[in-house]
């Protein structure tokens, strides 16, 4: 692998030294372009109280092409499909080299606060959201508890 570009080194340093609240990103030791990410579910969203695991990979062309991000934790969200793929414009055609790992993760966090059923990736979830929003939110909350609940150390 070619030497890591200065920009990636700087970004990684800043992500660790000056972390965004609710977002935790750590590069893999053997591949500094691959990150393990934890995003805490935003308050007053159906995902509150959950910690969602994501993977983020910086392709060779980065920052000229967007990072690849995917949810690893199951989530009931109209813009995230069951494989964890995220429907977010800045990860696709709206990518700009001025964006960074930090901004991408902030956008994902924001997407959790504001699901957008009009631009769905998971059609059935989006339909559920449109037809009966309270019920869909309840289901999202249930999934959060089932799959994304912060692992509490076992009581003695």
């Amino acid at each position: 692998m070619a030497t890591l570009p200065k920009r990636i080194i700087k970004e990684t340093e800043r992500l660790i030294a000056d972390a965004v609240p609710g977002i935790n990103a750590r590069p893999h030791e053997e591949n500094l372009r691959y990150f393990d990410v934890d995003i805490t579910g935003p308050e007053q969203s159906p995902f509150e109280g959950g910690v969602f695991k994501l993977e983020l990979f910086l392709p060779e062309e980065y920052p000229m092409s967007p990072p690849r991000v995917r949810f690893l934790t199951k989530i009931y969200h109209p813009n995230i499909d069951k494989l964890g793929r995220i429907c977010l414009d800045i990860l696709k055609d709206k990518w700009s080299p001025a964006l960074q790992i930090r901004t991408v993760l902030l956008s994902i966090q924001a997407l959790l606060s504001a699901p957008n059923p009009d631009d769905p990736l998971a059609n059935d979830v989006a339909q559920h959201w449109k037809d009966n929003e309270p019920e869909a939110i309840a289901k999202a909350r249930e999934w959060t508890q089932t799959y994304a609940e912060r692992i509490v150390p076992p009581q003695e």
Partner: protein
Amino acid sequence: MNQLDLFPFIIRMDLISVVYVESVNSNLICCVCQTPFVDPVVIESCGHTFCKNCITQALSTKSTCPVDRSHIPNVNELRPAAKIIVNMVNELLVYCPNKNDGCPYQGQRQLLITHLKEECLFTKLACCNEECKEIIFKKDLPKHMENCKARMVKCENCEAKVQLSILEGHKSTCPVKNIECPFCYTTHIQSVHTLHLEECPEKPVTCHHAEFGCSWEGLQRDLSDHIDSCSYESLKGFFNMYKQRNEALEQENQRLKTTIHELNNTVNLLENQVSAMSDWLSNFTDSKGTLSNSEGQPSSSILSDDDHMKNEIENLNFNLMDLDAIMTENMRMQEEIQSVKNVCYGLRMQMHYLLMERRGGEPSVGTAGPTNSVVRTGLNGHIGIGRTVPPSANNSKSSPDSSSELNTRPLRSLGPESPRQEKL
């Protein structure tokens, strides 16, 4: 950066990777590479500033401004950034890229190239000697050049520049090398030295007639004086004649020696052949003429052939003895068979007689004929297998029948005969 490329000694230099002394105002940071602008340019339509390299690369991927996504149809939209921006980034304090190697320099970014090119003692240079090319700090270069194994040195004789590593080799072949004469202690260059050695007046020599007995020894320059007074000189003609004859005799002697040597070799060869022949002959007489066809072969092979033949003959003898035993056995068996046959015949005759007696009134010839013939063929079949008695007239009559029929006939004939016996 282009200027740096022209400077061949600098191994690696990249302004993007320069380390800044102080933290830089975020307005001077390119949003693409996240470092202070290098060669800043501005997009005319939207006014955003980037490094020239960064924006060129970004626009080649996608023709929008990385900051506001406004459409940028072509790179002609780019203009050099305002002078004040250029100056601000150029005057940023940076460390020398060789800081980790020990260079303490820090100064304005725009002066860094000059520093690296002219001042920095920690710039890495490649030794300019073709064969060396070792990479060294600039500060160590003078010392290295003094000790470089591939440096050029001047030959002290011919003034030519020679590489240090081959200097020793050059010295021994240098055509202008000075060599001191061991006799007169004058020095001459190599090419003249050999000639001088022949003529050096200080060289110790002996008289020309030393071989004939003149005991004079002296320096070359005194030789001509001695020759004038040498008593052998007057006998020169005789000595020469004597010497020539001696030489001729020696040559002839040599020739004769060679001939004798050759003859000796021939004699040795012949002796060997004779001994080989006698060996072979002795083998020949031992084997009593049985090896006549292996004539001319080396004696050793004849010997082994002979042994081989002996063994074979012995084996054959054993086989013959076995055969003899079998023959004796065979004879005995034949005799036994003959006696059994005779007994059989006697019995048959008796039986025939009894049958004839019982039947009484039946015509003797009519019944006896077929029965008798059947019995006889059966008997003949048996005899045929034994091959001791030649086939009888009856057997030759039934020759059109196959041999299997011949063998089975007695059985078939006996079949109907036995019930007949029971009936009777």
